């Protein structure tokens, strides 16, 4: 089985979809000839032509707005937003239009748009190449939000998204775009949406996260083990709809939970996860659920390392839940 990084895995999924679905169309800024600034659409323009791999004008609202039109017409558009920091010109189109088309048409017009966009910090990109705006979209009824942590899941989840009819925001953790490598089949396969994955089993504390934070949690779990603490690590993979059942099962076992994300803490997705777990697990919880998150600041440049959750901060939170 070949080894791929996340970009190659995404590229492989896109190639499969483009080859098997004539209605699939990729569109975005520099996605064609150039193959995308992160090279995720590399080679597709040559293979599928300029009508199906479209270099658009520089306007995110137009990329999503026209993708919506194509989708309701019957196409299967796969727009790319170059960085999730630049998704906001399209926010209205995503939140008010794409997410609501099926509902407001009484089911007459599904809107199967799968937006791909790189997300998160760790590349020295400052405010505008580092943000993690997932909570804004998880708060939007009508969307699915997916955020893989490794190449195998990236390809399988993306292929799942491309085979269903709801609009999706597919976020790709750019910090580990190339760093995360693993075996990925060349052929098509799917990873089920809405299902979390237990990455590491453990007994005392449940660590919950997604994307680039999964490897941070794993690192923390290994370090914790060295000091005699057993942690279970869960990769959410799909953020909306999220797999509460798997989380509840784990927390019922461990009695403690730490939620990790890069986005600011206030109203971050960790708040929703913690609240949902309190509703289900209050009786078994040995300590308050801890949140390790970015600061409630704009994403910084020089102090990026301090802003981002790391293994030491996760261990600090693990200790707090044990010492409570």
């Amino acid at each position, binding site marked *: 089985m070949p080894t791929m990084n996340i970009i190659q895995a995404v590229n492989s999924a896109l190639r499969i979809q483009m080859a098997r679905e004539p209605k699939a169309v990729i569109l975005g800024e520099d996605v064609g000839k150039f193959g995308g600034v992160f090279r995720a659409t590399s080679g597709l323009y040559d293979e599928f032509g300029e009508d199906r791999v479209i270099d658009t004008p520089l306007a995110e609202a137009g990329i999503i707005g026209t993708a919506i*039109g194509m989708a309701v017409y019957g196409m299967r558009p796969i727009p790319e937003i170059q960085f999730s920091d630049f998704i906001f010109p399209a926010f209205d189109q995503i939140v008010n239009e794409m997410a609501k088309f099926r509902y407001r*048409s009484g089911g007459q*017009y599904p809107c199967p748009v799968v937006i791909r966009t790189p997300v998160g910090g760790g590349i020295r990109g400052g405010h505008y190449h580092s943000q993690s705006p997932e909570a804004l979209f998880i708060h939007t009824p009508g969307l699915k939000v997916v955020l893989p942590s490794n190449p195998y899941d990236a390809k399988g989840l993306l292929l799942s998204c491309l085979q269903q009819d709801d609009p999706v925001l597919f976020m790709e953790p750019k910090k580990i775009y190339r760093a995360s490598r693993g075996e990925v089949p060349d052929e098509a396969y799917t990873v089920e949406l809405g299902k979390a994955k237990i990455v590491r089993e453990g007994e005392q504390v449940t660590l919950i996260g997604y994307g680039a934070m999964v490897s941070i949690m794993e690192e923390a779990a290994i370090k914790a083990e060295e000091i005699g603490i057993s942690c279970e690590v869960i990769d959410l993979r799909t953020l909306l709809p999220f797999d509460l059942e798997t989380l509840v099962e784990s927390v019922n076992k461990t009695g403690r939970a730490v939620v990790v994300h890069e986005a600011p803490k206030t109203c971050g997705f960790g708040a929703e996860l913690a609240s949902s777990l309190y509703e289900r697990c209050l009786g078994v919880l040995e300590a308050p659920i801890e949140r390790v998150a970015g600061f409630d600041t704009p994403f910084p440049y020089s102090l990026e390392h301090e802003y981002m959750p790391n293994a030491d901060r996760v261990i600090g939170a693990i200790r707090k839940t044990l010492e409570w």
Partner: protein
Amino acid sequence: MSGVQAGERKGEKAATPMQARGPAFAYFDLDEEAKARGLFSILAEDGSYDPANVTRFDKTLCLQLYRGMLWTRLMDRQFMALQRQGVLGFYAETIGQEAASICSAATLEPQDWLVPALREHGAGLFRGMNFENFVAQLFGNANDITRGRQMPLHPCDRPTNYLNMSSCIATQISHAVGVAMGMKISGVGNQVCMGYMGDGATSEGDFHVAMNFAAVRKAPVVLICQNNQWAISTPVSGQTAAETFALKGIGYGMESLRADGNDMFAVYEVCKYAVDKARRGEGPTFIELLNYRLSAHTSSDDPSRYRDESVTTMWREKREPLIRARIFLEKKGWLSEAEHEAMAAQIESTIREVVAKQRDVPAPPLRSLIEDVQQTPWWRLEEDLAAMQELLAKQ
């Protein structure tokens, strides 16, 4: 369809050279800027016309167009009255805009798509949207195929390719362009999309983005701006410093036309020109149709607070589209006073019958609250609905 022959202007059909159809059509020979600054018209305010300009319009087509306009006018009156009686929650009339709406949509074929703004419901019905469904949508009742999800006047009708209106101004313009891009990419051919907007919508970013995408991608789309000169209380002068809205299209490299929106023939001809051109694969057109919002913005509005209603009266008495259409039809002997009364009576009674059938239909079932959010409701929606049902069962 045969390609454009040597010596012809771009965007012109070989079979029907524009010059052969009367002096008014010299408008289409003007340079880009002159077209966008000009005002194409055929039927004067007093109903007079040059017969050479109206050879296309036989009795059948004229009566069809007129009936569509009259239907829209009478329907708006009845529904507004129902809103005033508290029977409908909301309504927005299109009085004075019937020619722009009906005679533009009349140039489409059944396989084409229509992406409306707020004032094209008449066009939707003209194209065959089921009237029972439309009225059910006004009431948001259990018969509403959009399942009571939006305020009145947001119908959606897949069988006639009528997309549903979003209340968000201008977002629909790029949807229209996207539909047209889909038509082009899928290579179905022979399909055109017509997208509408108001004058106010041209100030939104989505307008500029959509115009640019349409032009760059040469989408088979006709974008129509109904310039009714008001956006709620904001006059055109508060919306743009440009001399005309049509001029905006030129900056995007898009052919832009401007016509008297109260002139049923002028509307039809500019739209037909643009639709034919799009169908031949020659790209998009932007069209400004000049008319006047004779009614309030919506049932929630009172225009006397912000505009001089004597101007409105002038447009109502001298310029509105139905009066001059009727003068034309009477002159031609195609619609007598008695025939007109019969047509109106028939329309009104149909509307009354359908309203009577739909007004007391109950609301959609509770479960529809969580359906169509996505293909399948996710677990939280099911949980919250179950909790609600349990609560209701106890009451």
